[in-house]
């Protein structure tokens, strides 16, 4: 069983300013192509070097948007465990991620709060960098359980305010 399976981060464990453990990953052409096809994104700039360079004007094929979202989700739920529930994610791509890059995801907790329904929330600022250059920044809002008996996934309708 993985560490993620047993981990259960509670709201009280988290404080503004906390760092989310960084993730470093060597990106290959396979990473880019596998991610694009997993997302059913058939556009050639994510698998066709010639198209990416000569049509898009980029230096190589590059990681697509949905796969970046999947990387952010994995990064965040590695930290929270399965009871962490994503409510909202916003990201801005400032540069592309190419084969040969080592991407690093690092996060900082911006705020911790409980809403009117009693749902616990953390907002995390995540930075995806390559060689220290910011490629994408992401703001994520996640619900965390308040205690061992609480489960954000059980919330529906008016009790879920992402």
């Amino acid at each position: 069983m993985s560490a993620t399976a047993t981990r259960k981060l509670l709201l009280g464990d988290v404080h503004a300013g906390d760092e989310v453990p960084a993730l470093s990953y060597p990106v290959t052409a396979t990473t880019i192509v596998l991610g694009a096809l997993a997302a059913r994104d058939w556009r050639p700039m994510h698998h066709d070097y010639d198209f990416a360079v000569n049509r898009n004007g980029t230096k190589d094929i590059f990681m697509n948007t949905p796969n970046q979202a999947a990387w952010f989700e994995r990064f965040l739920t590695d930290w929270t465990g399965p009871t962490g529930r994503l409510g909202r994610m916003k990201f801005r791509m400032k540069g592309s991620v190419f084969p040969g890059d080592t991407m690093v995801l690092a996060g900082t907790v911006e705020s911790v709060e409980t809403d009117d329904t009693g749902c616990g929330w953390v907002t995390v600022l995540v930075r995806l960098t390559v060689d220290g250059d910011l490629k994408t920044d992401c703001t994520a809002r996640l619900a965390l359980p308040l205690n061992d008996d609480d489960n954000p996934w059980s919330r529906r309708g008016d009790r879920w305010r992402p």
Partner: protein
Amino acid sequence: MSATDLPEAIVKLIGEVQYEEAGEFPVERGYIYTTCSSVENGNPLFWDDDVASDVTGGPIAPPTMISVWFRPHNWSPGRTEPAVPLQVHFDLKAFFDLPEAVMTDNTIVFHEPVRVGDRLRTRQILRSVSEPKTTKLGTGRFWVIDVEYLNQNDELVGVESYTGFGYRREGSQ
């Protein structure tokens, strides 16, 4: 906020619901496993039915996969041209004669979990189109498009908001 120089045909589309359509297949595990594999996501919600049953009441898809379920097959019987997702984006590229485009911003709000077997529906809404802008990629316009996703019970499962930049590279015809 949209530009003030927009053609009437575009102004009329802002805020209009377009391209209401159903996904081409139900939410299924193959793509869930492939997506988790692509990012080495070991979250047991997607690999262990007992954990999924305890935490989410049964198997669900990773929330960030929401757009996966409405991306069309690259080919299917009777189709003569490759289908494209986010058709409003491609309509704008064609309307403004901007051959290239990239996505710059993406916001996703997650509501009801997407469950294995769900049949999702989507609809696209153009929210804004900018004035002409020049960036290092070329000259074009930014636009914001919302995609709403609903399940077979008409429950909102998510809203995705894309900012795209359609452009023409410097020196291209």
